[in-house]
């Protein structure tokens, strides 16, 4: 019975917080409600991780509508950690926006409701037992974040929100068609009607699913959920949306939303590998992975906007994650999951600190920021460390996970793809380091020198904690190692 509460809490707590914001608005007393809900989510996620790895089974709630296994618990930890960082940083971020008259009380109330709804939808996505409910939750995240992306109501923000909703809704519609076809194949394979979209039941019957229908279905599902995961060729919405959203929302979108969409692909892959053999999804994922990394490298080379730079780096990292999933051995899958967590922590720290740089400088152009290390050493330090983490430097965990993916790639016979990816990543390292050097080092610009970059304590704590956690994970995974192994096994690896 108490396990039921653990499964319900990750969705229920943010919903309650959203209701709180809807009733009371964003005030001094309610500002920390979101952080409290995120902390509760993280605690429930850790408890779920403990019980699922100890008992080695899944727990259900709401009559089988929700199901949590080790993989769901791991994803919940990622959601909880990034949401906590974003929500702790939100009050001071919004206070600065209010002071600069970029936003008003109605907009902050909406911010509270929508961010909490967004977190709840992501938690529902990773807990849903049915792929159909998972789809509904992922589409709900698009709707809930649309107004967050467009919150400044400028031309740029409106344009970004429009592209975001249209591209993501259409992309995810492809995934719905994939689900419809999978459902059709399932009913003809004698899968009981009640569980015909349940990922656990579908993977049990996977060998009987008609390969002709499943081939179309899986391709549509990978392409559709790939849109939301920021994978090429449907990535065009991502840099616009991530650069226009408020910094804490960018952190959530980049840090977890992309991985939540990728989680859907992982669940589909388990079914597809049995129904069609491992080769089909592997080819599909290698193609989108290399295309994503290549797109990111090409557009980073001429990038002049530091928020878009971070967004393209997210496309690169989702490409690396997709490459790891294509390799699909146990080592690769564990590395993929570690990469998702490391990227979530590092990228959210970066987006949060970039928000303060933006508020201080008033522009997101790289050229507008000069000599940040001298003007605001703490922000500059956090930004620099975050970039080093994302570029895969030790001791950060992204180094460990990238090494894991590379090693697994060579031993699984995908060495050529790994070599191509590494070459592209070198280009990305050069592009990002060049821009970071100009932003952080050198003398401050003569005219913009007096604009102070504020960095309140409540913002510094989650950023530094996130980077520290990322570094610690790179040195020793500790108790997380068991969870990673159990979760990696659930993705069909090592079968």
């Amino acid at each position, binding site marked *: 019975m108490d396990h039921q509460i653990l499964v319900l809490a990750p969705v229920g707590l943010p919903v309650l917080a959203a209701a709180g914001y809807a009733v009371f608005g964003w005030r001094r007393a309610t500002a920390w409600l979101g952080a409290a809900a995120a902390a509760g989510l993280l605690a429930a996620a850790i408890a779920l991780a403990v019980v699922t790895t100890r008992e080695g089974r899944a727990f259900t709630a709401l009559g089988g*509508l929700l199901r949590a296994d080790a993989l769901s618990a791991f994803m919940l930890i990622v959601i909880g950690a990034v949401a906590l960082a974003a929500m702790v940083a939100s009050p001071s971020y919004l206070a600065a926006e209010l002071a600069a008259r970029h936003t008003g009380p109605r907009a902050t109330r909406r911010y509270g409701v929508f961010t909490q709804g967004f977190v709840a939808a992501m938690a529902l996505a990773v807990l849903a037992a*049915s792929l*159909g*409910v998972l*789809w*509904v939750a992922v*589409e*709900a995240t*698009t*709707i809930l974040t*649309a*107004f967050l992306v*467009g919150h400044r*109501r*400028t*031309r*740029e923000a*409106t*344009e*970004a*929100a*429009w*592209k975001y*909703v*249209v591209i993501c*809704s*259409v992309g995810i*519609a492809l995934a*719905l*068609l994939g*689900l*419809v*076809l999978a*459902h*059709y*194949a399932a*009913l*003809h394979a004698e899968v009981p*009607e*009640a569980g*015909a*979209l349940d990922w656990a039941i579908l993977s049990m019957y996977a060998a009987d699913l*008609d390969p*002709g*229908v499943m*081939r*179309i279905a899986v391709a549509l599902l990978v392409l559709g959920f790939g849109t939301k995961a920021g994978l090429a060729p449907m990535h065009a919405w991502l*840099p*616009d949306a991530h*650069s*226009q959203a408020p910094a804490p929302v960018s952190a959530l979108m980049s840090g977890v939303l992309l991985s939540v969409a990728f989680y859907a692909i992982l669940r589909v892959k388990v079914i597809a590998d049995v129904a069609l053999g491992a080769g089909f999804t592997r080819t599909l994922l290698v193609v989108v992975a290399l295309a994503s990394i290549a797109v990111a490298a090409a*557009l980073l080379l*001429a*990038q002049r906007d530091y928020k*878009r730079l971070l967004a393209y780096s997210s496309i690169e990292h989702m490409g690396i994650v997709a490459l790891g999933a294509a390799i699909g051995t146990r080592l690769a899958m564990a590395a993929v999951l570690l990469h998702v967590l490391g990227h979530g922590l590092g990228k959210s720290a970066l987006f949060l600190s970039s928000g303060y740089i933006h508020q201080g400088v008033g522009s997101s152009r790289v050229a507008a920021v000069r000599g940040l290390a001298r003007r605001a050493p703490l922000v500059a330090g956090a930004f620099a460390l975050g970039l080093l983490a994302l570029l895969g430097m030790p001791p950060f965990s992204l180094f460990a996970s990238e090494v894991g993916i590379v090693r697994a790639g060579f031993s699984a016979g995908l060495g050529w793809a790994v070599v191509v990816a590494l070459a592209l990543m070198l280009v990305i390292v050069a592009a990002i380091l060049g821009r970071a050097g100009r932003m952080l080092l050198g003398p401050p610009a003569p005219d913009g020198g007096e604009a102070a970059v504020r960095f309140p304590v409540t913002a510094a704590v989650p950023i530094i904690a996130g980077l520290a956690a990322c570094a610690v994970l790179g040195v020793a995974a500790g108790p997380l190692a068991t969870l990673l192994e159990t979760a990696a096994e659930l993705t069909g690896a090592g079968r």
Partner: protein
Amino acid sequence: MSESTYVQLLDLACGAFLLAGVLVLWRRDLTAIVRLFAAQGAALAAIVIVLGVWQGSAELVVVGVALGGLRAGLLPYLILRALPERGGPGDGEGRETQPLVNVATSLVAAAVLALIAYAVSQPLIRLAPSPAAQAVPVALTVLLVGFFVLVTRRRALSQVVGFLLIDNAITATAFLTTNGVPLVVELGVSLDVLLAVLVLRVLTTRMRAAFGGTDLDELRELRD
């Protein structure tokens, strides 16, 4: 209902569904486009109701009626409300002035898309060649037409209609292959679509305020 009447009624409804989809390419007046979309919603509801009557399933008939209410009633109403008044200040907004591809070429493209849809749906028909499953290419043609509208039309509201055509097509596929996805999912999908249309409506209003129109070619503030 005898088997031949069932097949005839089903084919009639599917034909109307396809025709409404293709005619969207032909008209340039946005009001007419939305009316065609409403007609297509009614055809979709008819498909579901025919299937329900044939299988003697009251549940399916009810779902069909509800779908009709949403797709032939509520959604078209919401889009029409977002159009500027006729003869008002923004009257020029009500027409698709310059689609990237002209009408004649668009209709030829629709024929090509239909051929592609037939080729792609062969494996789907092979699994269970019932009269309903044999109509799946019709739904997939509308899906591709929806994509075509989305890529080639320049008004914000035409893009919304393109998105909704895609959605109609997916729902039709669901009912023609199986009796639709499970009810919880169908409810969630319908709610998501409704909310997406509401969000896009608000964004259209904002776009008009920020850009002075809803021409999507104006959207070029953000690029690399």
